[in-house]
């Protein structure tokens, strides 16, 4: 109990804090002293190319495995040591599709609810609310197989909210979707940040998904090259857009190494 009191007594508890996380697969360094934070009610973009270390970071945050060094906390709870409490506050949308195509939307939600210890009836009620939020209230009985890619993603977002997480992690959620579906998903997630004060970490390599007021973390070859509001990253790099800033930053990093 004292630990909880200690945590809550701080003025702002970060929704997610990644503190000096390093990880290597054998000799290959995947993450090198990565640190950043996501505040409650903020939309933070983790920007990086494929191979930047995003998936490793995701695996560490979701406790698939523990990093060689460093700490990840979700609302002050150490993911490695207090994983149950940390994971209870975390919602995740993986890059890969993780719905059972042969089961109905409702059945998929029921399974997820059960994994979080939520009974069938309560899951049904919460599921109806969340499906309504993502605009799929009438599809609960449909088999997932018959949904479009964008609809599946929205079901996955509704599912990730069933256990009322305060921090939401989305790994390239718009990959492979058309422009309309991408816009819908961004709108849903931005709505969650604005209305519910959920902290969101959104990984992408698409710069057009970033708004000026978003917090951006640029990850490149396992290192954080920039961390701050999109606007100031652009200004610091003396660039005209975040895309240009990203090129400047990552181009520079490559020059450093070689």
């Amino acid at each position, binding site marked *: 109990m004292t630990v*909880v009191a200690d*945590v*809550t007594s701080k003025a702002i*508890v970060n929704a997610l804090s990644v503190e000096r996380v390093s990880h290597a*697969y054998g000799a290959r360094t995947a993450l090198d002293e990565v640190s950043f934070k996501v505040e*409650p009610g903020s939309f933070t973009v983790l920007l990086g190319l494929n191979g930047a270390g995003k*998936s*490793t970071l995701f*695996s560490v945050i*979701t*406790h*698939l*495995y*523990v990093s060689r060094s460093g700490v990840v906390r979700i*609302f*002050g709870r150490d993911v*490695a040591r207090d*994983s*149950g*409490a940390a*994971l*209870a*506050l*975390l919602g*995740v949308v*993986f*890059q*890969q*599709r*993780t719905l*059972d195509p*042969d*089961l109905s939307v409702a*059945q998929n939600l*029921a*399974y*997820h*609810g*059960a*994994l*979080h*210890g*939520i*009974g069938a009836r309560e899951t049904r009620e919460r599921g109806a609310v969340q499906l309504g939020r993502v605009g799929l209230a009438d599809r609960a009985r449909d088999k997932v197989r018959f949904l479009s890619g964008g609809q599946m993603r929205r079901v996955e977002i509704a599912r990730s909210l069933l256990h*009322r997480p*305060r921090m939401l992690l989305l790994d390239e959620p718009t990959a492979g979707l058309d422009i309309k579906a991408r816009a819908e998903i961004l709108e849903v997630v931005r709505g969650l940040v604005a209305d519910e*004060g959920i902290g969101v970490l959104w990984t992408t390599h698409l710069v057009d998904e970033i708004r000026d007021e978003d917090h951006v973390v640029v990850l490149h070859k396992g290192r954080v090259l920039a961390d701050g509001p999109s606007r100031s990253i652009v200004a610091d790099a003396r660039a005209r857009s975040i895309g240009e800033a990203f090129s400047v930053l990552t181009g520079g990093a490559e020059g450093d190494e070689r």
Partner: protein
Amino acid sequence: MTDAVLTGEERRPFGWRQLLICLYGIVWRESLRFLHQRERFISALVRPLVWLFIFAAGFRQTLGVSIMPPYDTYVLYEVYITPGLIAMIQLFNGMQSSLSMIYDREMGSMRMLLVSPAPRWFLLTSKLLAGVAVSVLQVYAFLIIAYFWEIEPPTWWGYLSVLPSLVLSGLMLGALGMLLSSLIKQLENFAGVMNFVIFPMFFASSALYPLWRVQEGSPWLATVCRLNPFTYSVELIRFAFYQEVDWLSLAVVAGCTVVFLGAAVIAYDPARGMLMRRGG
């Protein structure tokens, strides 16, 4: 205290009720998926039936089985190999569901499972029990067909008394598969598992021939059979079908279950296991 709300302090910890809901959900989903995959169900059923109708019928004259416990009379060869075929169903199922864990991991649904706040050993055990539930369904479907081939326990109670042995041997074989899936990368395709795990375990056991006959032909092979945990699965099921307990088999199967499952949980431990080595 808005902070308390933000940090989710109102959340109850994961208690017994939550764990039970979690277990039930995992078993329910696996069974539902199984019922949706009709090909898998049919092939799981056809495999032992081919052995029963073709192999056993062919060998009926060649291999007479003398009186030995638990049989108190001469039995047909089909009757003798039925427990072996039941265990084979479970062996296939155990390996298959563990292989599906590897694919699951790549497909993401394994990761879905592992982000549950429940302890990881509990999630893995639940997954194992789900596989056992599916294998028990397969076994009873097989037994129904075998009944019409006049292979039946001495009393109807046999169908009930065999159940605990099915659960235990299913757990052992599933845990073995889970352990293999975590340790051996080369076993990622099913052909490899067939050649290096399923065939040797099945043939070097008491599934197809009684150990005393093996002993006559090859003492060396008989020793291998005695060291093979699968032999004890078969014998446990054979005796349970006749409402008897083979204590040695029970001890071996229970002991192996604990060892295999413990090792699998260590292998899947976030801080060491192979998830880290393989992750990308």
